[in-house]
């Protein structure tokens, strides 16, 4: 019997373990996934540790996941694909602060690759890091590459950011919204942010979380989120500069691991 090439095994398992981060299965299913990746350990140890890290994230073992990723990086240093998948996994597991820190840490690796820059810009925007995400724009401009489309509406944000709200304030609300949705097993498959005129001469930042469910369910969750946000009294929210929406839509799962 011929065996699948290591790269094929890695790619086949990658989508399963990424799915597991977004929607953690039970312990039994996780054990099955772990068995499936064991064959990689000898032939592609970097790939093995990477997938293992993903499974640790799916199990909620964040420190263990970091350790596994460190092993993967030691074996295959400076590989932009590995860095991007790591940042994607941090995003999927909702580790907002760590996502920004690691993006800055691996900046020199990311900045050379236009696809990585675009992807990271989207990841950072999806966590409210609207100032940090702008770091990629001059690099993309040098390469004559357009930024990721879902955050294109942010062009008017500079003055508002300076005057009214910091990215930390925005990220605090976005993190809360993401956690709220994750807790209801509605991990957003896409997050759009736009600057919209508020009708009184100012602008507001609008975050829309797209979740795979029915319109009615998304509407109820949005209403519950509104009540929860009002109770939390986040500064960006109280200032009225941030608008939140939840929208039901079908997910294109291939976009989860686009890098």
């Amino acid at each position, binding site marked *: 019997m011929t065996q699948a090439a290591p790269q094929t095994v890695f790619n086949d398992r990658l989508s399963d373990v990424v799915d597991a981060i977004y929607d953690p299965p039970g312990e039994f299913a996780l054990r099955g996934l772990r068995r499936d990746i064991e064959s990689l350990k000898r032939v592609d140890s970097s790939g093995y540790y990477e997938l293992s890290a993903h499974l640790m994230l799916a199990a909620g073992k964040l420190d263990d996941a970091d350790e596994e990723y460190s092993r993967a990086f030691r074996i295959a240093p400076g590989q932009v694909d590995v860095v991007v998948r790591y940042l994607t996994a941090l995003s999927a597991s909702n580790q907002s602060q760590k996502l920004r820190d690691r993006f800055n840490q691996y900046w020199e690796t990311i900045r050379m690759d236009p696809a990585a820059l675009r992807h990271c810009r989207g990841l950072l925007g999806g966590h409210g890091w609207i100032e940090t995400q702008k770091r990629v724009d001059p690099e993309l401009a040098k390469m004559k590459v357009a930024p990721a489309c879902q955050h294109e509406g942010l062009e008017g944000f500079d003055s508002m950011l300076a005057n009214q709200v910091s990215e930390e304030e925005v990220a605090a609300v976005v993190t809360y919204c993401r956690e709220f949705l994750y807790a209801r097993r509605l991990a957003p498959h896409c997050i759009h942010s736009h600057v*919209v*005129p*508020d009708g*009184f001469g100012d602008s*507001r930042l609008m975050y829309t979380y797209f979740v795979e469910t029915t*319109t009615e369910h998304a509407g109820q969750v*949005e*209403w519950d989120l509104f009540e929860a946000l009002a109770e939390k009294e986040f500064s960006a929210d109280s200032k009225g500069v941030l608008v939140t929406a939840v*929208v039901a839509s079908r997910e294109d799962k291939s976009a989860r691991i686009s890098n």
Partner: protein
Amino acid sequence: MPVSPTDLRDLAKSLSNSESCETELRAAMSRAYYAIFHALLPFVSKLPPSSAHREHQLHITHEDLARRISEWRVESISPTLAKKRPFAAAVVKAVDTSRAFRERADYRLHVHVTLDEALQQIDRVDRVFRALEMIEAEITSSAANCAEERQAG
């Protein structure tokens, strides 16, 4: 009334289907917001002017409408309603979000709007309608209690 908030909501619904072009979806999102605005207007008119109210202002503006609900000075209308501040906060956010979609649909022509967003906007209208029914039921109940107390006294 020649046109009611329900008519606006129904128009938004009829404009939102899989055959709709983006212009229709934008119109639907805009009408849906106005369905909310006009549905809330009679109730909001009973509330004291908000901090956004300007001197000599003749009409309730979009900002004033949201602020009046946000400030929730309803004690004179219904003491029990006054305890429902978290509920009011959700109504304000629903108004805010539907207005932001309306503004995006009307002013941000380079940003796509989708059928999913239009359908969600219509669901938002229905939720505000239901919230308003609860508010009005609370006001009616408070008025009936007051009348009973007066009779008993």
